C-alpha cells in the first residue's frame, strides 16, 4: 500500500458503511410499515374507508336511550365507548366525550359528564330532567373525539335522542292470564327440501334458523329461510313456493302491498367503504327482484310493512326507498322519523308503552309474575296489542284506549333456534297474533285469536 492512499481508503470504507446503514434503515423502516405497524408503540393510522359513519363508526358510542319517561323524572344517561383501532393495544381507549342537551327549542348546552367505572368498564354519566318547567322536554346527543381522528363522532349520527315525555299514564292492570292452546297454521321439518326450513346448528357458532316470518292479509305466509338462502311463501291453501335471496344469515321479512321486503342485516359493501352496509331488497310475489337499497342505520332491528326500518339506537325509522328507488345516505338521514310506538320496561312487573300518534301512554302493571321483553306493541283501530316474550311463554294482551283489558293469554314459547326476537311475531289486521316457534324437529307457526276472534 502506498502511504498516500490510506486517507482515500478510509474515506471509501466510510462511504460503504454509510450506504450500508442507509440501506439498512430504508429496508427496516419500509418492511416495518408493511408489517402493519407491528412494532410496539405504533400509532393508530385511521383509514377512512375502514368505517362508515352510520353503520360502523371509528368510535362507537354505546348508549341505551330511554324511550318513554314521565315528566317529573330525572333521566339517567350513561355511555361507554369502543375504539376501532387495533393499534391501541393494551392502553384503554380514552376519548373525550361531550353531552349536548336542549329542553324544548332552547339552544343546546354542554352538560358535564361524570366519568366513572362500572366494575372495570369506563362509563360517562349524567342526570337530566325529562322536562324543564319553562322550556319543554329533553333532547340530547353525544360527541366523542380521539387524537387519532379528525372530526368528532356524533351519536346519533343524525337526529337526536328524544325520550317521549308524558304527564300521565293510562293504567292497564293485568290479572292472571289464561293459558291457551293455539291453532297451528304451519309446521315444517328442518331440512333443505322444497317444504322444509333450514337449520344450521354447528359447534362454536350461533344456531341459525329462520330469523323472521311475515303474514299477508290474504293469508299468505313468508318465511326467511336464510340457511337455504331463500324466501319461502306458503299460500292459504298450503302451496309452498320459494325464491333465492342473497341472505347472509340474519334478517327480517315483511309484506308491503304486493311486494315482499327482505332486510339483510349483514349486507354488502357500498362504494369506497369496505364495511358491509345492511340492505333492503324488494321482490314481487314471484320472487323477481324489483329494487334494493342500502340501510344507513347503526342498529337496524326490524322491518315494517311501510318499508321503514326501525333503528333502535335512536328509536327512529329509516326509509331506504322513496317509493320505488333507493334513497341516498343524505336522503335517508333527512327523512328519518321518530318511531311512534315506544316501549320502556320500568321493572319486572311494570312497562310503559307510548303511542306518539295519539299522544297516549300506558302503564302496564302485572301484579302476578314478570312481564318479560316486548317484541310487539301496536295499535289496532282504537285498541292496542302488546306481546311479552318470557322464558317459557308468550303473554299476549289486548286492551282498549282506556286501559281496559280485553284479553290476556299465554301460549308456549319454544326457542330451540334462537331467532331475532322481533321477527317471531306477526299481527293480522283483525288482531290475531301469529308466533313462530321451533323445537328439535322443525318450526311451527301458531295463531292466537284476538278478542274479535276468527281468521282474517
Amino acid at each position, binding site marked *: 500500500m502506498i502511504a498516500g492512499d490510506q486517507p482515500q481508503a478510509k474515506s471509501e470504507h466510510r462511504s460503504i458503511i454509510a450506504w450500508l446503514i442507509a440501506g439498512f434503515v430504508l429496508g427496516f423502516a419500509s418492511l416495518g410499515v408493511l408489517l402493519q405497524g407491528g412494532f410496539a408503540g405504533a400509532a393508530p393510522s385511521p383509514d377512512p374507508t*375502514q368505517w362508515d359513519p352510520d353503520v360502523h363508526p371509528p368510535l362507537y358510542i354505546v348508549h341505551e336511550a330511554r324511550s318513554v319517561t314521565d315528566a317529573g323524572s330525572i333521566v339517567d344517561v350513561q355511555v361507554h365507548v*369502543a375504539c376501532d383501532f387495533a393499534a391501541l393495544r393494551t392502553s384503554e381507549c380514552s376519548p373525550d366525550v361531550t353531552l349536548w342537551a336542549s329542553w324544548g327549542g332552547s339552544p343546546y348546552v354542554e352538560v358535564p359528564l361524570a366519568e366513572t367505572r*362500572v366494575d372495570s368498564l369506563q362509563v360517562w354519566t349524567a342526570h337530566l330532567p325529562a322536562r324543564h318547567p319553562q322550556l319543554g322536554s329533553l333532547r340530547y346527543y353525544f360527541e366523542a373525539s380521539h387524537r387519532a381522528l379528525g372530526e368528532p363522532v356524533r351519536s346519533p349520527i343524525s337526529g337526536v335522542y328524544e325520550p317521549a315525555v308524558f304527564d300521565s299514564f293510562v293504567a292497564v292492570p293485568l290479572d292472571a292470564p289464561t293459558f291457551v292452546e293455539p291453532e297451528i297454521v304451519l309446521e315444517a321439518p328442518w331440512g333443505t327440501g322444497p317444504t322444509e326450513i333450514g337449520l344450521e346448528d354447528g359447534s362454536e357458532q350461533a344456531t341459525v334458523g329462520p330469523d323472521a316470518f311475515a303474514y299477508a292479509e290474504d293469508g299468505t305466509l313468508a318465511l326467511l329461510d336464510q340457511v337455504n338462502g331463500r324466501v319461502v311463501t306458503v299460500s292459504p291453501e298450503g302451496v309452498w313456493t320459494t325464491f333465492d335471496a342473497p341472505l347472509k344469515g340474519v334478517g327480517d321479512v315483511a309484506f308491503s302491498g304486493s311486494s315482499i321486503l327482505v332486510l339483510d342485516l349483514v349486507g354488502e359493501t357500498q362504494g369506497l367503504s369496505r364495511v358491509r352496509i345492511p340492505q333492503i331488497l324488494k321482490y314481487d310475489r314471484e320472487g323477481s327482484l324489483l329494487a334494493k337499497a342500502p340501510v344507513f342505520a347503526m342498529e337496524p332491528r326490524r322491518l315494517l310493512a311501510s318499508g321503514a326500518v326501525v333503528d333502535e339506537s335512536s328509536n327512529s325509522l329509516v326509509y331506504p326507498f322513496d317509493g320505488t328507488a333507493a334513497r341516498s345516505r343524505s336522503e335517508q338521514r333527512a327523512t328519518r322519523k321518530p318511531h311512534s310506538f315506544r316501549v320502556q320496561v320500568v321493572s319486572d312487573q311494570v312497562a310503559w308503552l307510548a303511542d306518539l300518534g295519539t299522544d297516549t301512554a300506558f302503564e302496564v302493571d302485572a301484579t302476578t309474575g314478570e312481564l318479560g321483553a316486548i317484541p310487539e306493541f301496536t295499535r289496532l283501530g282504537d285498541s292496542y296489542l302488546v306481546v311479552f316474550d318470557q322464558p317459557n311463554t308468550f303473554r299476549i294482551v289486548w286492551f282498549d284506549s282506556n286501559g281496559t283489558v280485553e284479553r290476556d293469554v299465554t301460549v308456549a314459547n319454544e326457542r330451540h333456534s334462537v331467532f331475532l326476537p322481533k321477527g317471531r311475531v306477526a299481527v293480522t289486521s283483525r288482531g290475531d297474533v301469529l308466533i313462530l316457534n321451533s323445537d328439535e324437529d322443525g318450526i311451527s307457526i301458531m295463531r292466537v285469536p284476538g278478542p274479535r276472534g276468527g281468521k282474517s
Partner: protein
Amino acid sequence: MKSRVAILTGGVLLGMGVALLVSKPVEAGYSITCWTRSNAVSYSYTALHEGYEWGGGWWTDNNYDDTPSCPTDGGSGCEGPDCSGLVFKSWAMVNSWGSTGKYYWYAGDNVHGPYSSTSFRDGCGGACYDVCTRPCGSGSYSLTIPMDAFAKSGHIGLIWSEGSDGYDDILEAHSNNAGVILSERSYRLSSSYDGVRRKNWSTSC
C-alpha cells in the same frame, strides 16, 4: 456508482431481514398485567364485520371478510375467530387451561385458546364463573355487565350493551355466512344459556 447501489441494496435486504426477525415475536402477543372491560369492548369491536372460521382465531381489522370464499372449516388461512375464540381473545386470556392471567393477543394471531363454548359455560377450568344460570331471565340485569358473555353448549356471545327487558345487543362470531356481527338477542331468556364472567379483570389500566 454500481457498487454503491449494490451496497445500498444489501443494506435494504439486511434491514428487511432484521425487521422480519424482530416483528415475529411481537405478532405472537405478550403477557400483560392489566386488562379491563373497556379494553375488551374496544378489542372486540375490532372484530366486528370480520369473517368467521370454526376453530379460527385471527382477523385483520379492516371490517371486511378477507377470505369470504373460505368454507367453515377452511383452516388457518381463513379469516375470523369462532365464537369461543373471539371471547378468549377479547378477554385477553392465557392460552393455558384455567389460568386467570392476562395475555394480549394481536388480532392477527391465529390463536383460539383452550376453551369451547361449553367449557366457558362450565367455568373455564376456574378462569371464569357463572353470574346467572339458565334461564337468567329479564330480572337478571343487576347480575351482568357489558363484556360478560352468554354461553351454552355450542355457542357464546359477548354482551355489548344491555337492554332492560330480556333482550341485549350481543357481539358474536355468528356463522360462516354472517361473520362477526352485532345484533339483538334473547339469550338472557333462553333456557340454554348461562351468564358467564371472566375472573380477574383489572380495575383500570
